[in-house]
């Protein structure tokens, strides 16, 4: 019963947070780009996302006649549910956690692979050329970057000696893993950008060339689901960055939950700032960068970590 309440609370707060994030990002982008951003709905425009949600819900729920209907409807649901399920294993505080699985990290990776399907399925089911190209790009990008993402956190797992996310946070009592696992943290963050397909890795969408990529044919709340999924994904990836490399809920004076969200928001801001700054690399450049730079770097990181642990034992770091 207790868990059920927790789940409901978690769902509610996650939806609110990602809706607010959309507004925060748009306001920040506006600020950085010498314009206002949405500032009309509610105080400072804070209700903009609510207005957008109402608009999307009120729109005709239209499926293009040429689309593969069941898959077309399924695809946006996949991404949202996969991301939301991942939050089940995220330890917000030592006690605030829905399911404290001992394979927590693996569970997250499994689900994030699943969410890659939504892009492929959406691209395929839309039966449109732009969507197809977007879907193909998305699948190639996400499958490659998942490899480095997995490898980049293996160093953390070695240091913590566990896949359980709570153990990983507790292992950072003295030193956050972003110091010994500097390279791992860097690669993880890049892979996280690619996983959430945010600029500069928004190649599956690439509005300049592919109109809107895999979700070109989507409208109404089905499009809203993709949108929501993207922002939930940002929250998830930022939370993971905090848990794996920035000591999770740990910090002096303030309560653990506050620390957790404070750190997470910092990471989210970096996501936004990068979006405002960088251009988009070409698809092949991105994949080449992944396999020729990130893969060797993460393997090397893994090797060096393993050697140090083997020679000095766990306490060395």
């Amino acid at each position: 019963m207790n868990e059920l309440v927790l789940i409901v609370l978690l769902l509610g707060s996650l939806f609110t947070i990602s809706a607010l994030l959309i507004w925060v990002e748009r306001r920040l982008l506006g600020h950085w780009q010498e314009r206002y951003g949405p500032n009309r709905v509610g105080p400072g425009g804070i209700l903009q996302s609510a207005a957008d949600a109402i608009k999307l819900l009120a729109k005709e729920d239209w499926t293009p006649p040429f689309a593969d209907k069941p898959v077309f409807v399924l695809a946006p649901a996949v991404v949202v549910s996969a991301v939301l399920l991942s939050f089940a294993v995220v330890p917000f505080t030592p006690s605030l956690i829905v399911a404290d699985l001992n394979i927590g990290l693996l569970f997250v990776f499994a689900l994030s692979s699943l969410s890659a399907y939504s892009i492929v399925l959406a691209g395929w089911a839309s039966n449109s050329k732009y969507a197809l190209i977007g879907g193909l790009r998305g699948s190639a990008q996400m499958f490659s970057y998942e490899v480095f993402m997995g490898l980049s956190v293996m160093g953390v797992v070695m240091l913590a000696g566990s896949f359980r996310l709570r153990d990983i946070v507790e292992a950072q009592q003295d030193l956050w893993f972003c110091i010994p696992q500097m390279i791992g943290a860097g690669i993880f963050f890049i892979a996280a950008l690619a996983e959430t397909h945010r600029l500069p890795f928004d190649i599956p969408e690439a509005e300049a060339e592919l109109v809107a990529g895999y979700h070109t044919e989507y409208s109404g709340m089905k499009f809203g689901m993709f949108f929501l999924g993207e922002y939930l994904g940002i929250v998830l990836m930022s939370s993971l960055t905090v848990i794996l490399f920035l000591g999770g809920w740990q910090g002096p004076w303030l309560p653990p939950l506050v620390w957790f969200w404070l750190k997470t928001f910092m990471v989210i801001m970096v996501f936004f700032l990068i979006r405002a700054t960088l251009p988009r690399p070409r698809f092949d450049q991105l994949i080449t960068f992944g396999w020729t730079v990130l893969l060797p770097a993460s393997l090397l990181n893994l090797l060096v970590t393993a050697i140090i642990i083997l020679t000095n034992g766990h306490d060395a770091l």
Partner: protein
Amino acid sequence: MMHDLPILDELRLRFGKDSAQIEETRDDIPTISTNKASVLPLLRFLKEDTDQPYRMLFDMTAIDERNRTTRPMDASNEFTAVYTLFSFDRNQDLRVKVPLASDDLLLPSITSIWPSANWYEREIWDMFGIRFNGHPYLRRLLMPKSWEGHPLRKDHPARATEMTPYELEEEDEQTEQDLLKFSPEEWGMQRTHDQVEYMFLNLGPAHTGTHGILRLVVQLAGEQIVDIVPDIGFHHRAAEKMGERQTWHTYIPYTDRIDYLGGVMNELPYLLAVERLAGIRVPARAQVIRVMLAELFRIASHLVWYGTFAQDVGQLSPVFYMFTDRERVFHIIEAITGGRMHPGWFRIGGVAHDLPQGWEHLVREFLEYLPPRLNEYDDLVLGNRIFQARTKGVGRYTTQEAMDWGVTGPGLRATGFSWDFRKTQPYSGYEQFDFEVPTATNGDCYDRGLVRVEEMRQSLRIIEQCLNQMPEGPTKADHALTTPPDKARTLHDIETLIQHFLAVSWGPRIPAGEVMAKVEATKGCNAYYLISDGAPWPYRVRIRTPSFPHIQMVPSISKGHLLSDLLAILGSVDFVLADVDR
């Protein structure tokens, strides 16, 4: 004077007197008239065999001569095809005319000599119904496939009210849509090759990356571009046809909207041509004001290009910074002209008003404001490693290819060839200004960007000189044919009143003749070829725009690149669809 040109002797010697008859025109451009049989060898000789060859097919058009009253005595042909060539070595144009009879509208295609002739010949077929033998696919270019008649013929109506009201029935709509469907076979393209099935991706006419209503059908193998078929004409507004029914004066605002980012820059070549025909000398102050505004518009146009180019390669923010800067340019332009993008402010013989009080302050403020911003953009955009990876080595072409395709402006200078009509054929007093012509070496997307950014700095230099050395004096020529007529000379007696009334209601009658004037516009060389019949309106207005040949070249430089590169190429070419379609 033009009879002594050595090239004319050479042509007469080689092709016989009849094949190269010299014709008098009001501009300095040597004009010869040849016949159908000689046109192909003659043009080939001019491009390939003569010393200091005419490398570029600068423009190609036709004239419907049937209603023209002021022609040389012996001319009786109904149509004339006009080829304008340009030699960089000689810094000289050459106009070759071919008279055609209306029952025999057929010419040999010169696409084997200049690839750029392809679209020009299609346009002439579309507009005049002149056929070209040996053209790979002679079909309509600007008008819809279902259009009946050839619009630039004199018997084609110029106003909608002269035609039956237009109605689109449901079945006609279906027919129109079917006509727009792309069929690869029609263009000699294969659907499969070596077990690769090509995808034909329809980019546009409404697409985020094409900067306007341009349709590109891209043949893709995976994401690699095999070929592209551009489909233009969606922005066609019959600007040339409208020229034939507007008075000399009332046509000025139409020119603003040809390259809609160039504003008064478009008015300049038109007015230079009109003033040449009328024999008007523009006073020094008006010339400098014109130069200053034209350079402000060059900066405004380049800023739009800069921001959208960055956006085409996925950079979100720069476009906002650059549009903010452009707003400051418009602030100055608004203070001076009252308008923003399309002020319509130059007049025959000068400009509409003198500069307002305090203009120096506005301009000086902007001159101090922009340079540090440009330096910042260098770091933000051009210096960005991802940006460089996206644009370096992409969409390359050589100087030779650029000349073959009729490329002018920054696109030509990016190949390392320093050519700027402001320097080589100064107009409107550009010879008095001290500025450099920036060039680059590789001719790729990045270099085209580099050249434009540097051009903005040079434009600032020119504006600064305008500011510091603005001459005193009148802003309009003291001439009977200027518009609007001088108010001080009217209302004295009935004669001056009638003069004034006619000059306002009809506008001036510009003396008969032919003139072409060209300027270094924002995108490249923009030229107006005007034919006057001595009437209050032009007999023929031909607008040679830079975007037209530039966009025609895109398929040839995109082949083998990836789909994402196409957007970088389109961004770097910097075209305006209204400038392509007119």
